Each structure stands twice: as C-alpha cells, then as structure tokens.
C-alpha cells in the first residue's frame, strides 16, 4: 500500500451544522489509492502550534480525484481547519491504515454515530460497486439532532440504503440512541460495520457477539505519525497492544479488549 503526501486544493466547503464542516479537496493520488475506512493525516497549518497532524477518515472519493473530509470542530486543530476556504491548500498524508473488509454477498448493516458517519459513506458507496442490493442493507445513523444528520441521511437514502435515524433530542427519527435500532436488524445481517463514540461501538460489538454477527469497528487514538513509526496510537487488544494506525483503524470487534 503506497502512501502519498499531497498538497490538496480545497474545492468546496460546506457547513452542515454549527461547527460541522465538509471539505472537498482535489487529491488525486490519495483518492485513487483510498479504501473505505482508511484515513489521512492532515497538517493543520504553518505554525508549530498545533504541531502534529490530525487524523481524519476519508469521507468519500470521486473518480475525478476529489476527496471529502467531514469533521467537527472540537479543539485548536479543527478550529484552524474550519477557517480554510476554497482555493487554499491542505497538506495530506495518506491513505493510511487498514480499512473495512468489503462484503460481497449477504446483507450488511452500517452503524454510524456523529462524525463516525464520515467513513461509512465512503464504505456505503464502495459496497455498491460490488453489485449489492442496498435496499437489503440497513444503515443506522445517530447524532445529537436533526441539523447534523439530515443531509447525511438523505445521501445514504439516495444511494438506495434502508436508512434509519436516531437523535438525542428526537428532532429526527427515533428519540434516543442509534443502538436502540439494532434489535430488528441484527437477525437479518451477517456483518455490521460501526464507527462512532467508543461506548456506542462497545455496545454494538457486544450485541453482535451475542447475535453471532461479524462486527468491524473503527477505533480512534491519539496519533503522532499515522505511519506505524512512533508507536503512540496504542489500544488494548485481546492479545497485548495494537496500533490503530497500522493494524487499524478498522478492527474486528473481537480483537479489541473493550474497557
């Protein structure tokens, strides 16, 4: 898997909700090599503060070499990224890590919470390339409220998926957790792909285990290099430690020592 460093031009900037931004970049090298679930390390600016790159999932790629990131402003780095405007450039390193295993036959389920939805959309698009019937694949999406979720839900719907939503405030879909929507779904699928807050992934992983359904989760860790060099991005695995940027970010739920 070749990695590239690419100065990508920003083509478009969308503000999906307060402090949720979607950037479209022209990054032909990274886009062409990307697989769903992989991520890029983004250099935040020229200053040494912040110093380190920030990891972001690849939200989607186009055949023309465009690539999207979807992120939420949570701190200094994302605040800098939110200030970028079309025409400016962003320095990317990628594609990095091990992505989702693409299932060809049996129905799958995608479960995304908050910004965890980002890599799932790329996955959702790429799965279609294998001639699947998305009507049979449930997509469960959760967020704080309607504003953050509506557009993303529409886009999955437009791909043909069987979309179900949940919001913390009840403004869209089920009023509650996205995990509440799992029960009717699990018996119908053979594999669940999940990305979102840790507690949510832990619940989904446990429910899949109980139901005998395969489950892939996308984990986060603080990262310095994204390349397997610093050994900083450790998570506890069932056997010793694993490094998110190298063996992950996508793991079989069974490999993870859930806390």
């Amino acid at each position, binding site marked *: 898997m070749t990695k590239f460093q690419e100065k990508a031009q920003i083509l478009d900037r969308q503000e999906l909700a307060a402090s949720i931004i979607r950037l479209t970049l022209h990054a032909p090298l990274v886009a062409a090599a990307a697989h769903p679930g992989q991520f890029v390390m983004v*250099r935040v600016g020229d200053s*040494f503060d*912040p*110093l380190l790159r920030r990891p972001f999932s690849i939200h989607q790629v186009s055949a023309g070499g465009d690539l999207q990131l979807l992120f939420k402003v949570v701190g200094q780095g994302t605040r800098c990224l939110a200030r970028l405007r079309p025409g400016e450039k962003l320095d990317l390193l990628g594609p990095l890590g091990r992505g989702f295993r693409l299932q060809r036959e049996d129905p799958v389920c995608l479960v995304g919470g908050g910004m965890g939805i980002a890599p799932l959309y790329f996955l959702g698009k790429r799965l279609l390339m294998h001639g699947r019937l998305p009507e049979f694949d449930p997509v469960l999406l959760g967020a704080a409220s309607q504003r953050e979720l509506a557009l993303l839900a529409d886009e999955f719907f437009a791909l043909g998926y069987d979309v179900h939503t949940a919001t913390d405030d009840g403004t869209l879909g089920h009023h509650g957790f996205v995990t509440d929507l799992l029960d009717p779904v699990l018996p119908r699928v053979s594999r669940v792909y999940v990305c979102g807050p840790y507690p949510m992934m832990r619940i989904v992983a446990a429910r899949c285990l109980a139901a005998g359904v395969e489950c892939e989760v996308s984990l986060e860790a603080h990262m310095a290099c994204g390349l397997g*060099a610093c*050994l900083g*991005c*450790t998570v506890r695995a069932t056997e010793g*430690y694993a490094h998110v940027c190298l063996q992950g970010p996508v793991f079989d739920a069974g490999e993870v020592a859930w806390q």
Partner: protein
Amino acid sequence: MTDHNDIDLRVRIGPLRLRNPVLAASGTFGYGREFADLVNLHRLGGVVTKGISLLPRPGNPPPRIVETACGMLNAIGLENVGVDEFIRRKMVFLRSAGTRVFVNILGDSIDDYARLAEQLSGVEGIDALEVNISCPNVKQGGVAFGTVPEMAAAVTASVRAATDLPVIVKLSPNVTDIAAMARVVEEAGADAVSLINTLIGMAIDCRTRRPRLANVIGGLSGPAIKPVALRMVWQVARTVSIPVIGIGGIATAGDALEFLIAGASAVQVGTANFRQPSVTEEIVAGIRSFLQEEGMLSVRDIIGTLQVEGG
C-alpha cells in the same frame, strides 16, 4: 556563489563517514521502512532505529502521547521487537536502504547493554551503535543510567569492550551538568555523544484529574525544546574532543545549522518527521542552499564556527 553540486556535505563521526550530517532520530522513524514511501532514504546521512532491547517489550499502556505547545510528550515505554527479531526481520530492509544504520540500544542493567552490543556486532549493515542511557537501572533502584556519571561511564565502558562498532552515547538532558556527563562518557571510551534525549514532562486532564499519559510522566520533544538542546550541545562541544551529534527540536535547515555552528558534527531530526515525513531530505537540501548562498564549499567549514565575544 558556489555551484550547487560542488558543495561537500560529508562529515565524520569518529571513525564513521557520513554522506551528510542529517540523520533521523531514534523512535521517530520506526525501522526506516515506515517512511520509505515518503522520503528518499538514500539522501539521508543515516537512520537511527527505534531503541532495541534484548527481549521484545510491549511498552506502556495507552494513552502514550499528548501534544503540548510546540511539542509533544511521549511515554511509549520503549516498545520494540527485541534484538533477535530486529536482526532477523528489520535489518533486511535497512541493509538495502542505501543509508547509514545506527542501532539505538537500551537495557535494564549494564550487562544488558554489553550483550546487545555483542549480538549486534558483526551483523551486516549496522554502522554504529547509539547507547540510550536515559532508561532506569532496574538493578539499582530505577535511577536512570543517564543521570549518574559513574553509571553512564560504566555502561559506556561495557559497550565499548563488547563491540568494534563506533559507539555513540546518547545523553539525557535531565541533569544539572551535561558537560560533566559528556566528559565521563568520553573518558569511558565513547566515539561520539549525541544529545539531547527528551526532557521529562507531564500533562494533566483537568476534568478527570488524571495524567494525560497512563505512565504519568513522559518525554518532551519538538521545537519547544530546541533552545535547551542547542545550549547543551554548545556546552558539550566546548568540553569534549569527540564528535557531538545535535538533537532536539530540529525542524528546518536553519535549526540544523544552528546546531552545526554550535559545534555539532551532525544532527538528528525527531518529532519533525511526524509533521513532515520528508523533512530530513529537505533539511539536507536547505543546508546545501545555505552554504551555496554563503559561498562555502564544505559543511565542515561551518561546524563549530560560533563567534562568542571573548570566548
């Protein structure tokens, strides 16, 4: 102005000749291969491997890193594949990388260091050993080898006796008198010293009232520490007569030149590799341009040229 191609970047570290004075620092460049897509390794003076111990080590529990102002703290806990696996697996790529290979070694006892040096001697493709003495001496109450002159000297002497490879001792900055540490290590037979390793630091999460590193304390690196590193390199270069390798916060050619001017014969680039994977190669190019602009023919002409009034 000198012609770009005429500029001589070669330097010597004791018996070892390097193509240029820019190395990648231990622990920030993996085993070399991790960066191979992103930087031309054969353009570098050399690569220092992640610290290697006798047995594989799992390292510390997470979280292991945290960003700080212009720097980062790490408490990797010396995770590594162990010397056998290193020789069997990691050296295969490194041998073919077209650059000098420095193996960073660490142990819990003086004997560990000697045994590592022995095992690595004679392995094809290894050009030098860098002895990391910042580790705690588990046999003597966990005080770091690098903070007690006698212990540093003993480690150096034992490695020296165990190998014919050039021996570079990597000094810890967490001491009152860095020049004194360098002096004892020189007397004990080191071919060169490299400095600095990380400063010990800490960060706390106010909400949880917990340290941000599972290990509580960690090593501070990055641009934040450059002024301290440069001062120590200058102090050491004035004190010892063996070559000095400068490390600490180097992120640009200008930074590297400051260390050379202060008396370093070569430099290592650490944390900056994370920000810019090709930074080492860019620093080589930047040094060349600088020398050209200054009308200088050899990088050796700039080493130790700091002008200090009355000194």
